[in-house]
C-alpha cells in the first residue's frame, strides 16, 4: 500500500497521521524547520470589520466614530479605547491596543482583504471556510496543509490553541501549555531538568537500549498487523517518537506573561500561546500555529464587548510580533487574521446594549513574509455588501469576482509554496485564480 492509498483509507475515518513503516521515507529525527512560520489568528465568534479595517461613515452601521481614518493606504475605524468605554477594571485598557495604534504601527506591512463573501453566517461553517478555504466539511485547515507539506516527518509541526484546526489525517495536532511540564517532557530521562545536577533515570546507553528495543518491538507488532486503524495507531507512535527529540531545542521563556484580573485572562492566554509558538518556531519544531481569541459573538452590548475584544486581538498580535522580533524570527512570520464571518449590517436594537447579528460579508488581514504591504483589496458598499474586483488588477470592477475564502486560500497555498504538494492536491480548491492577491 503506498502513502497515498494509506492516507485515503485512514483518512476515511480521520485516522491517518502518518504513513506506515516502509512508506515514510524518513524515520530518523526530522531536520529542524527553518521557516517561514505561519500564524493563523482566529477572532472566534464573528468580528466586526466596520469597527476595524472596513470603516463606514457614521450611521446605522457605525455609531461610535465619526468616520474612517487613514494610515498609509489603509482606512481604519478610529475608535478610542479607555477603561470605562471597554468596561474594564482601572488600568485594564493599558494592556490593549487601539485601532489607531495598530494601524499606524503595522499598516505598512498589511494586506487588508475587504468584501469577502463567506456564503454563510453559521459559526462552524464560517470558521471552517476562513481557515480551510471550503465551506463544507472534510477539509483540513491551512495550518495542517502547510505543516504536512513542509515538515511531513514531524509530528509537532502543527500547534493549535483553538479555532478551526481539523487535520483530516494529514498530521497530528499538538497543544502546548505549562512551561514546567514542557521542560520535564523535553528531557524525559532527567529526574529534575530544572537542576544543573540532575540525575538520569537511566544511563544514556540504557536509554538508547530501551529505545532500540521499543523500535524493534513496534516493527514486529506492525509487521503482524492487518487492520488499517491499528496500523495507523502504531505508525503514529513511531512517528511521534521520531520527533520527540526536537523538544530538546525548545528554549522556553523563564516565565509566561501574566496580566492582572480575570477580564484580561483571554488575552493573557493568547499571549502565553504566542510565547510558546515563538519558542516552537525558534526550535525548528513548528511550521504553523493557530492562535485563538473568543468573545466576538456580540449579539448584545456590541459597542463595548466587540471593541474590547478587537483591542485585545490587536494587542495580542502586537505582542506576538514583539516576541518574534526578540527571537529573531519576525521576518519569517506569515500572519493571517480572520474570523467566522462579520457582524451587521446594523444593530439589532436601538439602545446602548444593542448587538449586531451574523453577517456573511467579512474581512481578513495578512502580513509578513511575502505578503504585499500597505494594500487594501476589495471593498464593501455602505450597506456592507461585497464589491467585485478584477482578478488581475485587483481593482474594483463591476462584473468582476467577489472575494471568496477558496480564492484566498488558493493564493495562500501558492504563497506558502504548498499548492503543488500532495496534501493540497488531495484537498483541491475551486476558487478564482488571483496570482497577486496576497503578494502584491
Amino acid at each position, binding site marked *: 500500500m503506498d502513502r497515498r492509498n494509506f492516507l485515503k483509507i485512514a483518512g476515511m475515518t480521520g485516522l491517518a497521521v502518518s504513513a506506515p513503516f516502509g512508506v515514510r521515507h524518513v524515520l530518523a529525527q526530522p531536520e529542524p524547520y527553518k521557516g517561514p512560520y505561519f500564524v493563523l489568528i482566529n477572532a472566534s465568534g464573528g468580528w466586526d470589520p466596520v469597527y476595524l479595517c472596513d470603516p463606514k461613515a457614521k450611521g446605522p452601521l457605525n455609531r461610535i466614530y465619526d468616520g474612517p481614518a487613514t494610515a498609509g493606504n489603509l482606512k481604519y475605524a478610529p475608535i478610542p479605547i479607555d477603561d470605562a468605554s471597554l468596561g474594564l477594571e482601572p488600568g485594564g485598557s493599558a494592556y490593549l491596543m487601539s485601532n489607531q495604534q495598530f494601524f499606524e504601527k503595522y499598516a505598512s506591512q498589511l494586506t487588508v482583504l475587504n468584501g469577502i463573501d463567506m456564503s454563510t453566517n453559521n459559526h462552524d461553517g464560517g470558521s471552517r471556510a476562513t481557515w480551510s478555504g471550503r465551506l463544507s466539511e472534510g477539509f483540513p485547515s491551512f495550518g495542517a496543509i502547510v505543516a504536512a507539506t513542509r515538515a511531513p516527518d514531524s509530528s509537532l509541526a502543527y500547534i493549535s490553541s483553538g479555532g478551526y484546526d481539523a487535520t483530516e489525517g494529514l498530521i497530528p495536532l499538538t497543544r502546548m501549555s505549562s512551561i514546567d511540564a514542557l521542560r520535564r517532557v523535553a528531557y*524525559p530521562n532527567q529526574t529534575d531538568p530544572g537542576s544543573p545536577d540532575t540525575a538520569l533515570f537511566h544511563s544514556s546507553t540504557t536509554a538508547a537500549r*530501551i529505545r532500540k528495543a521499543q523500535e524493534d518491538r513496534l516493527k514486529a507488532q506492525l509487521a503482524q498487523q492487518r487492520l488499517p486503524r491499528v496500523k495507523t495507531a502504531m505508525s503514529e507512535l513511531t512517528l511521534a517518537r521520531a520527533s520527540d527529540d526536537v523538544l530538546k531545542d525548545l528554549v522556553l521563556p523563564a516565565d509566561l506573561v501574566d496580566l492582572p484580573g480575570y477580564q484580561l485572562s483571554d488575552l493573557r492566554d493568547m499571549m502565553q500561546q504566542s510565547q510558546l509558538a515563538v519558542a516552537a518556531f525558534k526550535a525548528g519544531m513548528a511550521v504553523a500555529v493557530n492562535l485563538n481569541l473568543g468573545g466576538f459573538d456580540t449579539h448584545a452590548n456590541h459597542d463595548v464587548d466587540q471593541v474590547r475584544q478587537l483591542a485585545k486581538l490587536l494587542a495580542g498580535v502586537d505582542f506576538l510580533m514583539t516576541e518574534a522580533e526578540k527571537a529573531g524570527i519576525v521576518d519569517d512570520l506569515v500572519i493571517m487574521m480572520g474570523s467566522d464571518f462579520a457582524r451587521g449590517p446594523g444593530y439589532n436594537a436601538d439602545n446602548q446594549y444593542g448587538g449586531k447579528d451574523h453577517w456573511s460579508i467579512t474581512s481578513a488581514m495578512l502580513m509578513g513574509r511575502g505578503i504585499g504591504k500597505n494594500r487594501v483589496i476589495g471593498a464593501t458598499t455602505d450597506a456592507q455588501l461585497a464589491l467585485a474586483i478584477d482578478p488581475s488588477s485587483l481593482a474594483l470592477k463591476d462584473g468582476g469576482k467577489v472575494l471568496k475564502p477558496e480564492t484566498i486560500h488558493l493564493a495562500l497555498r501558492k504563497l506558502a509554496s504548498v499548492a503543488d504538494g500532495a496534501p493540497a492536491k488531495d484537498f483541491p480548491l475551486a476558487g478564482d485564480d488571483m496570482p497577486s492577491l496576497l503578494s502584491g
Partner: protein
Amino acid sequence: MTRLPRFGRAATTSLASLGFIAGLALGCNGALGGDGDSCTSTREYFAAEAWTKVMGKKCITCHGPAGIAEEQNAEFRLLPSSYPGFMDANYEAVKTNASISYDGLSALLAKPTAKTMHGGGEVIKEGSEEYRIIASLLEQLKDPVECSDADGAQLDGVVLSTPDETLRKAALHLVGRLPNADEISEVKAGGEDALAEAVRGMLEEDGFYDRLGDIFNDLLLTDRYTVYTGFAIALLNQDDYPNAGAWWDGVADEDQRRRINTAVAREPVDLIAHVVRNDRPFTEILTADYTVVNPFSAPIYGVSPEFKDPTDYNEFKEVKLSITRDGQKLAIPHAGVLSSPMFLNRFPTTPTNRNRHRARMVYKMFLATDILRIGERPIDPTQSLTYQNPTRDDTKCNFCHKQIDPIAGSFQNYNDYDMEQLDRDREWYPEMFAPGFNGEDMPKSEFPNALPWFATRAAQDPRFVIASVYTVFRGLTGQEPLAYPADPDDPNYGAKLAAWQAQDGLLRKLGEDFVADEYNLKTIIEQVILSPYYRGITAETELSETEALKLAAVGTARLSTPELLARKIEAVTGIRWIRGWDLAEQLKTDYKILYGGIDSDSITQRLTHLNGIMASVASRMANEVACGVTAFDFSRPADQRTLFPKVTLDTTPLGPTGAEIPDTIAAIKENIQYLHARLLGEQLDITDPEIERTYQLFLETWKEGAANVTGGKEDAWLSWQCQARVDPNTQQDLPEAQKISDDPNYTVRAWMAVITYLLSDYKFLFE
C-alpha cells in the same frame, strides 16, 4: 425480522461464529441473494442502489428540507444524510409512497416519469437504469427481503480479542482495575456469555461511574466549574439559593469547600450517573422531575434529605428543588439535566440569542443533530435585506430557525441575564416560531411548564436513541460514528458505503436493544464492549485496498485519554503517577492538556492522535513510574509484590565468573513473562521472541551496569528519586528496615529499564 442471538455470545472469537457473517446466508428468500451465499435485504438494496443512485441524487433536490416539493406541500419528503437516522426515515417514506398508485403504477415511478402530475416534471426516463432500479425496489417491497442479522454488519475477516483479553480491556477501561480471579476463571469457562455477564457486573461498581462521568462531561463540559473552588457556587442566584451566600462563606474547611463546589458543578453529570446506576430509563436524564444531591451539595440548595452517611460523597438522593419568591414557595420545573443551573450556565443565552444556542446544543447532545450542518448552504446577503423578519420569513434562514426557535422557546422561563434564574412571568417573543417540538405547538397553558413539556417529547424522539448510542460509542471506542459517504462518484464509494452500512447496522441494532431494554444505557455499553469496533485486533488475512476501506473503522486502537491512562497505571503497577507535593495525578493536572485532554473551558476537544509532545509525556511517565515503583516493589515481601514476585535483588543472570546461571535466568524470564501479562495483557510462552527481547534488554543493561559499578564508573547508590524511601502513593516514609537506597547488583536499574520499556509500549499507551 429473523435475528441470530445477540452477537458476542458465542464461545469463539471469530466474527462468523458470533453471527456477524453467518447471518448472510440465513433468512434470505433467495430472490435477491445472487448465488445464495449472501443475503441483501431490501433495505440494503434501497441504501446501496435506490438511494445512492436515484433518490439521493435527484429526488432529494426538490423533496429535501426546504425544497420546492416541501414548499408546495408535497407529502413525499426525503432527508439528506446530515440528518440522524436519515436512511430509516427515507426508507419508510419510500415504502409509504410506493403504496400509492396511479393507473396501477406506483407513485415512485408514475411521478418522476411524469405519467401523472409531478411538480418536477419528468426527471427519470422510462427504461433508464434509474427506472430499472426503482422498479426493482418496488418489486422487492411487495415481499421485502429481511436478512437474519443486522443489516450490513458484515465484518468478515476481523479477528476479535478473546473473551479474557476483552475482559481485561473492559475492566481497565470501565472500572480502572484488572479483572479479579473469579471473573477470569468464569470467563475462561463460560466464554462470551460469561464475558457479557462480567461486563454487566462491572457496571455496578463505583469505578464505572467515574468513567461514565468523564464520558458525559465530554458532552456537558460542566467540569469547567471545578477549576477553582467557588466557581459553581458563584453562579447561583443568592436570592433563590441563599445558602450560596452567607452559609457558603462560613464554610472554613478548604477540603469541604472543594467538595461542595464539585458536587454542585457536577450535578447534571451525577444525575446521569444516578439514572444509569439505578437502571432507570435513560430518558430520565431529560424527563426527571427531580435532581440529585449529595451531603455536600444539599445544603447549598436548601434541602436536607436523610443521608445514611453524611460524609459519603457518593451517596446521592433525589430531591425536588424549590425557591422562595415573595414569600411563596415556587417549585423548580425539573427537566432532567436541562433545568440544571450548571447546564443553563454552561450553555448561556442573551436577550438577542433567545436561547437558540441552548436549542442547538440540545439538538447536538440529545438528538444527534448538528443543526448547523443541516442548515449549511450558501446564503445571499442581499436577499435577507428584503425581509423584515428574516429568521421567520426568509427561507434561507427560517429553514433552520423553524427547527431551532421552537426548542429555544422551551427555555423561555429562564432569565436572559442570570442564566439559571427562573423567570416565569416573562413574555416570549411572538415574532419567533412558536415554542414546540417536531411540528407540535406547545399549548399556551403549558408555557409555565415549558421545559418539562419539551423534554418529555424529546426523550421519545427516535433521535434521542441515536444520540444515546452515539455518545456511548464515542466514549468507549474514541471514534466518531462514520459519516455517510457523500460522493457517489468517489471510486471508493462502494467500500465506504459498506463500512458505513456495517457500522450503521450495528448502531441501529444497539438502539433497538436499548429501547427493548426499557432505555437501559447499560445495554448499549455492554454491546459496544462486545462489538468488533472495540474488540477487533487484526484481520485474518492481508487486506486489499477495498477490504481495508471496508474495515477502516474497526479495531482496538484507541489512544488512552489522560484519565484512562492514569487509572491504568495505578491498576497495573499499584502506584499512581502523582505530584509529590499535593499527591495530585500528573495526567489530570500538569500533563492533562499536553497529553491531549480537555479543560472543559477553552479546550473541549480531545486529541486522539499521538504527537511528539505526547510521546515525550509518555516517556517521562514510563521513566518516573519505573523509578518510583521498582525499588519500592522490591522493598516488600515477595508475596506482596505487584511486579516482581519471582525474583529478588540477588537474582542475577550470570555468576561472578560470567557463567550463565540457568535457574536464575529461568526466574528472570518467568518474571518477564509475568510482567508482559500484567502490564500489557500478553499471554506469552516462555520461549516467545518477545520474552527474549525483553530479557536481552534486562541482560545487557545488567551486564553493563554491574560492570560499571564494579569498575567505579557508576554509583552503587540509586538516584534519590528512585530509592525506596517513601510509599509512592502517600509520600509517607517507609520503615527503615524496608528502605532500599543502593543497588550494588544493578538489578533494580536493570528492572527499571524493563518497566520503562513495557510502560511505553504500544499496548500500554493504546487500548
